[in-house]
């Protein structure tokens, strides 16, 4: 993949361009509606769904509050099972470790299991810079990679593409795919032939992990296509990059998430492939197993009292599929591998606010409708975190007096604070300035009126009517 998210414009600017792409709008509306409906159907089948959500949230919270001991236990158990555990503070350290392992074995080609964390750290680009080719083996991730494109969804990274576009990418980039049709079976068949050769030749695989069970030192990958199983079992060397928030204390805890995740993610009762591995199994599967435990901003997020709940996220994408903003603008506008409502909180939490205008624009990329919170399997209260992050953005600029926030907004808010400080002042403002038009100008009438009329201001405010008529009694 040659494309990266570096240097993306602020959300409103990126969104404007995306909204004008009618093909994208159509692809997204169709795809999100399909997954949304599937999810709703299979979730409705589970009588105790709400209890499962509460359990999921409680287990993750408990794990996060004891992260220090859970991670040390995980390391101990992994090491005892023959794995090598490496710790990485940031993306650069993690990428360097993966490259180092490849180079130690004289490997210049790796196959990859679909993994958000390796996209987060820009692993493919880092390996490419070291002369190591990284092949994505998940079908959608492969479409993105071959199209020199960026992922736009956590679970379905090529959700913005329809099958005609995919056919065109395959014809251009795959040998032997010149004559294929845009039938899904034909497209999948071409990818299968293309990937089979990669699986059989690869000596090293790179994965992430959906969960890491501390009590036994077991990593878990949940997937649908079987490409993960191939990567995790065929090569000699396996390196897994795991965010430190992925730890769950016990197998009993894991059970809850294996029920929450597939229904929330793909709308399936159970996912087709669940792979678990505990270090090295002699003469079976990879004989060198390396686990990179990654921070990359997670401890920063953990220190945020309101925002730390975002670390419960199991990357199911239900919030993306239910978000009316995401459905219309797609994932690229968020400028990150983590788009949608979870991306709007996760990016500022991992990176911090007050320095990058793009990151600071993300907490505002929501109407706070709450549809995301309603579907989140681990009950992340995304609207509350968004509001808290907005306050952090404003406070950061308050302290630095740096011009990322339009000063007109600050002036309007301070003015409103004074006006709303007393009923008498508000009454005066209404009488003399006709608050109606005042409100309109504060809203920035041009953005509003491009497609909407403004209400006509009434002759008399409620307050004035109440006074004049003695509360409607005269």
């Amino acid at each position, binding site marked *: 993949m040659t494309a990266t998210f570096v240097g993306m414009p602020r959300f*409103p600017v990126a*969104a*404007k361009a995306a*909204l004008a792409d009618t093909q994208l709008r159509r692809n997204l509306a169709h795809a999100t509606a399909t997954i949304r409906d599937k999810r709703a159907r299979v979730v409705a089948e589970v009588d105790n769904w709400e209890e499962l959500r509460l359990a999921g949230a409680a287990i993750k919270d408990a794990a996060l509050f004891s992260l220090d001991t859970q991670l040390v236990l995980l390391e101990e158990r992994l090491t005892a099972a023959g794995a090598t555990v490496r710790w990485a503070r940031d993306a650069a350290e993690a990428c360097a470790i993966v490259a180092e392992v490849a180079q130690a074995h004289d490997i210049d080609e790796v196959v990859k299991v679909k993994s958000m964390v390796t996209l987060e750290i820009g692993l493919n680009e880092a390996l490419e810079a070291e002369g190591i080719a990284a092949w994505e083996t998940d079908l959608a991730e492969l479409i993105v990679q071959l199209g020199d494109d960026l992922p736009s969804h956590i679970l379905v990274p090529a959700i913005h593409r329809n099958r005609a576009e995919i056919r065109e990418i395959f014809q251009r980039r795959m040998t032997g795919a010149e004559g294929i049709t845009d039938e899904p079976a034909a497209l999948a068949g071409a990818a299968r032939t293309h990937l089979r050769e990669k699986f059989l030749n690869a000596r090293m695989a790179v994965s992430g992990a959906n969960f890491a069970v501390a009590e036994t030192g077991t990593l878990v990958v949940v997937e649908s296509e079987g490409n993960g199983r191939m990567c995790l079992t065929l090569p000699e060397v396996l390196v897994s990059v795991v965010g430190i928030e992925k730890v769950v204390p016990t197998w009993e805890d894991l059970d809850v998430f294996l029920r929450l995740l597939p229904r929330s993610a793909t709308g399936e009762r159970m996912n087709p492939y669940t792979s678990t591995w505990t270090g090295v199994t002699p003469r079976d599967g990879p004989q060198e197993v390396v686990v990179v435990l990654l921070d990359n901003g997670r401890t920063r997020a953990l220190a945020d009292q309101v925002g730390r709940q975002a670390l419960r996220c199991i990357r199911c994408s239900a919030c993306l599929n239910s978000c*009316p*903003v995401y459905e*219309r*603008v797609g994932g690229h506008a968020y400028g990150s591998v983590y788009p949608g409502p979870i991306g709007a909180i996760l990016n500022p939490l991992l990176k911090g606010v007050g320095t990058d205008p793009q990151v600071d624009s993300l*907490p*505002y*990329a929501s*109407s*706070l*409708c*709450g*549809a995301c919170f309603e579907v989140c399997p681990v009950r992340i209260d995304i*609207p509350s975190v968004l*509001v808290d992050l*907005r*306050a*952090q953005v*404003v*406070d950061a600029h308050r302290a630095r007096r740096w011009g990322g926030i339009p000063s007109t*907004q600050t002036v309007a*808010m*301070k003015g*409103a*604070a*004074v006006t*709303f*400080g*007393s*009923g008498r*002042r*508000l*009454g005066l403002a*209404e009488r003399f300035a006709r*608050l*109606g038009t005042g*409100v309109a100008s504060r*809203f*920035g009438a041009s*953005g*509003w009126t*491009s*497609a*909407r*009329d*403004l*209400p006509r*201001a*009434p002759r*008399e*405010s*409620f*307050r004035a*009517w*109440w006074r004049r008529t003695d*509360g*409607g009694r005269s």
Partner: protein
Amino acid sequence: MVTCINDALFPDTGRAVVTLLRRLGVEVDFPEAQTCCGQPMVNTGYLDEAVPPLRSFVKAFDGYDAIVTPSGSCAGSARHQHGIVAQRHFQRSGDPALVAAVERTAPRTYELSEFLVDVLEVTDVGAYFPHRVTYHPTCHSLRMLGVGDRPVRLLQAVRGLDLVELPRAEECCGFGGTFAVKNADTSVAMVSDKARHVRETGAEVLVAGDNSCLMNIGGALTRQRAGVRVMHLAEILASTEQRTAAS
């Protein structure tokens, strides 16, 4: 609590609430110290600026049995955000008075349909409104307050009213306060779809429990010359055969 938007732009809604509640035997007052609940500041990230309106709020409403408002969003702000603003103010100033006041006002704040159904225990309010109507459940009343089907039950009991279902009713209209300005293009895309769904119903009137959402959808509908008008739930519930004939 009439709310600042209703006070300044939609006084008819406030008057309808007064009429309706008095008809149901409630003693209604409008404490003139009230201004704004502070939600526009909180949702834009200006928590310090939300303190003066919050002070006005508790000054106006502390001591009443119930604080009733024709807005799911403002009720949500009073119940869920005032505590956050007051806590932060306490941490920064050491003044616990606001926290204590909010502990008294927040649980006494009701969105209109909640007050009617839960406190007054009435669904048939004696209203008459002979029109084809569709209902948009606003996000904050639906997901922040959880008013459920209370507004629908109230509408179903209105004589003459033909209630038709709105497709994708629970999807946000794209208002979101300052969202409608900061992300105007996305907001317009959302409200355009909402207006299309409203037109598909063939309703004459779109009803909701929040005038800010109605201002957004109504603004799109009038721009499209759609021939659908928007009305607050309170105005439909306040209308009777006598009042309809008189107007």
